């Protein structure tokens, strides 16, 4: 199954997020205004300095966080306060259910959706096999490695056949080699399912390797300051990192991001070389 990259699948128009004041803390302007169109079937990544609102962007697109201003739409329907059907989310932290086996974890969402048991079995078996977890069906998450648990979380999302897959730094806790291999898996999933993917990451090489387009965000409040087109072929994998163009894309991203990262460090009070900034 494959979908051509096409028209707008999800969009943000003038989206702003301001977290209200809490006790002694003033309001925090976390995001926006942001305008973004995710094209149908594309792989889009967002990079930006720490605390710039990348995850907030994902949350508002998913309907997990209400916007302070602006509109969010998925397949031309407004996204308000709840995750629309057709959107799947994978978080950075391990979100597997430790009390369920791998198989039951993967089947969880389908069973709650009252899908017939035969369909559940067919989809779960297929997805676990696709994700290389078929041999661990009866294992518990505690018996799996970190990478396998993250694959399980992706599998649990994939069985619902999302048309838009939102990934919030899903490989953040993994080592570099595993991340590259997981990146290959992700590209395979993307090609196989034809889903649109939005990946939030702080790793420039990951974004450059996986994406059709990479959005660069400014320091807080997060704005999309540039969108870089990678022009990679759809049928790609991690070997792309050895190409000279890969270095160019990564360099282009870093050139745009460097100043923003410095600003973000100043915002958090840490200066160059890790020294405290004295104002």
């Amino acid at each position: 199954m494959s979908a051509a990259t096409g028209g707008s699948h999800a969009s943000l128009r003038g989206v702003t997020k301001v977290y209200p004041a809490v006790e002694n803390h003033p309001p925090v302007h976390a995001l926006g205004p942001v305008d973004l169109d995710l094209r149908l079937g594309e792989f889009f990544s967002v990079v930006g300095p720490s605390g710039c609102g990348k995850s907030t962007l994902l949350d508002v697109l998913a309907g997990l966080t209400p916007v302070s201003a602006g509109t969010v739409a998925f397949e031309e329907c407004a996204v308000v306060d709840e995750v629309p059907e057709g959107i799947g989310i994978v978080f950075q932290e391990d979100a597997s259910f430790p009390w369920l086996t791998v198989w039951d974890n993967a089947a969880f969402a389908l069973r709650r959706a009252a899908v017939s048991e035969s369909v559940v079995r067919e989809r779960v078996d297929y997805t676990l096999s696709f994700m290389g977890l078929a041999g661990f069906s009866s294992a518990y998450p505690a018996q799996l490695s970190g990478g396998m648990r993250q694959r399980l979380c992706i599998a649990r999302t994939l069985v619902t056949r999302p048309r838009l897959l939102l990934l919030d730094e899903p490989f953040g806790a993994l080592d570099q080699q595993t991340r590259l291999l997981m990146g290959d898996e992700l590209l395979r999933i993307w090609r196989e399912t034809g889903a649109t993917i939005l990946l939030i990451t702080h790793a420039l090489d990951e974004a450059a390797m996986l994406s059709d387009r990479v959005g660069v965000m400014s320091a807080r409040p997060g704005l999309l300051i540039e969108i870089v087109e990678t022009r990679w072929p759809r049928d790609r994998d991690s070997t792309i990192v050895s190409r000279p163009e890969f270095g160019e894309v990564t360099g282009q991203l870093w050139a745009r991001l460097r100043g923003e990262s410095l600003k973000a460090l100043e915002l958090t009070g840490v200066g160059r070389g890790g020294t405290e900034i004295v104002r």
Partner: protein
Amino acid sequence: MSRAGFIRFLVVAVAIVVLEIACRAGLIDPITIIPPSGMAAGAWKLIVSGRYTEDILLTLGSVALAAMLAIVGGFGLGYCLFRLPRLRRALDPLLASYYAVPTFIFYPLFIVLFGLNRLPLVAIGFMFAVIAMAINTLTGFERVPPVLRRTARALRLSAPTALVQITMPACAPYLFTGVKLVIAYSFIGVIAGEFVLSGAGIGHQIAFAYNNFDNPTMYGLMLLLISFVSGLNMLLFVWERRFYRRRGLT
């Protein structure tokens, strides 16, 4: 049997043998302690005669009722405290000092409220146990990883479904600890209450036998009680171990 289990068994067996020898050799006054074999014979006689069946059932019934109420009430209170942080802040000092108050002082009040029957004892068992359950429930809910709550929303679960299918299983280890404490505290509350304040039940019969120098009955009842509570605890322990191992917590 595991190595730790074998050592446990050995320690208990050696203690019993030493006590048996000390009693038989006259090192311990038989008015104070009878040999373990005498205790076992006394316990067996009590079971066979059925003399105390009614008292045993009465005590177990009161403990079960107190424990059930404490589990339900403690869970409800813990959940309310979790959902209402202001209430929690207000009650925090009371919860912290709760076990400093001797619950038995409320017995006269319970008699006035419930009458001269088993209910005051159930109330004491309940009061002894309920806060342990509430605190464990509160801790459990607080320790549920936020990512699981977000996952529940990402999977479009309704609030009640998320509570039953995700939050409660996620905090189950804490709820389990709460239930274990409730059972122990309910036994302590009810039996200690019977010792002093009741005309029936195992606690009362132990006290009665003690006052009449009826050592075989007293030790027999004590042995039955200890065996029952230890058996129950072992069962919970095995269940807990299996439960924790599955989650990779051991």
